[in-house]
């Protein structure tokens, strides 16, 4: 078992932390992009499997 902290371990730690930050950043970006893209789709709920006119702007619900 190695107890002494060798310089190589510090370098390896910097690499691991850096890669961790990059991965977390990538997840945040994909999540953010997904939110923006979905918001730009408009009234998607109006076409959720069956047309729901009450959710579409300017459409009257049938009586």
């Amino acid at each position, binding site marked *: 078992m*190695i107890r002494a902290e*060798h310089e*190589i371990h*510090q*370098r*390896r730690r*910097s*690499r691991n*932390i*850096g*890669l961790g930050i990059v991965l977390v950043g990538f997840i945040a*970006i994909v999540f*953010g*992009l997904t939110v*923006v893209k979905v918001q*730009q789709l408009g009234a998607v709920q109006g076409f959720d499997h069956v047309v729901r006119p009450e959710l579409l702007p300017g459409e009257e619900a049938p009586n």
Partner: protein
Amino acid sequence: MTDATSIMDREYEAQFGDYFALLKPRVMTLVVFTAFVGMLVAPVSLHPFVGFCAILFIAVGGGASGALNMWWDADIDAVMRRTAKRPVPSGRVGGDEALGIGLALSGFSVVMLGLSTNWAAAALLAFTIFFYAVVYSMWLKRSTPQNIVIGGAAGAFPPMIGWVAATGSVSLESILMFALIFLWTPPHFWALALFMRSDYDDAGVPMLTVTHGRPSTRRHILAYTVILAAFAIWLGFTSAGGPVYLIAAIGLNAWFVKGAWEIFRRNEEIAETDNYSVEKRFFKFSLLYLFLHFGALLADAVLRTAGVIG
């Protein structure tokens, strides 16, 4: 072999900063700035987060081409003083690692740019990486003294990619922004080559100052600067430009052409007596020249958004 001995066997294990240095961060700042301006002056505005992501992926693509360039050029980088400390020639990162990172980030940046904006911008980014890594680094850098001109084209693409990311197509404005950087690069580097006794010779890279001589380099600087001035001012009359840009472009180009004319009029004897002061001043001004042109484009875009100018 124990874990400890296997660790000690390796001379150096790279840390995160070494991998980051592969991406040429200083070049990346220029890429980010010009791509940002190209995107902002476009008539179509992107969602701020999508715009941020697009700039990020363009920067990563630029970094990927830098890593590929470092992999390929490790032999000449090791010979030259300016580049000997780069991660690959100094042994901090293996050549195969640089190649792997370069290829992976190329694919990643192109796909992510395509998904976040459009595939025309992604195709342009892919072409830029190919152009810099293959056409420039592998093919023409070591075979022609016009290498600076060709390398400049790769650096000129980012504002065009920014524009295409916003609008989806290439137009006159984006071509003129491309021309601005493309035509600026040769006078910028040749002025440097005139006063820096570089070690490109030892590395076997043909430079215009060596292959065609210094008087020819001075003529080239003047010719490129005059053509550059015409294209830079032309950009002021398009939708990307505005009053701030036009005034800045006229002033900056008048100064730049004057500097190129002075360089053209001098010979080596005169230059050596004043320690290349004119060439050095021209080189320093060239850095400001590009920054102020894109800064002026940015100022006009901000004023247009604020409704100050039409």
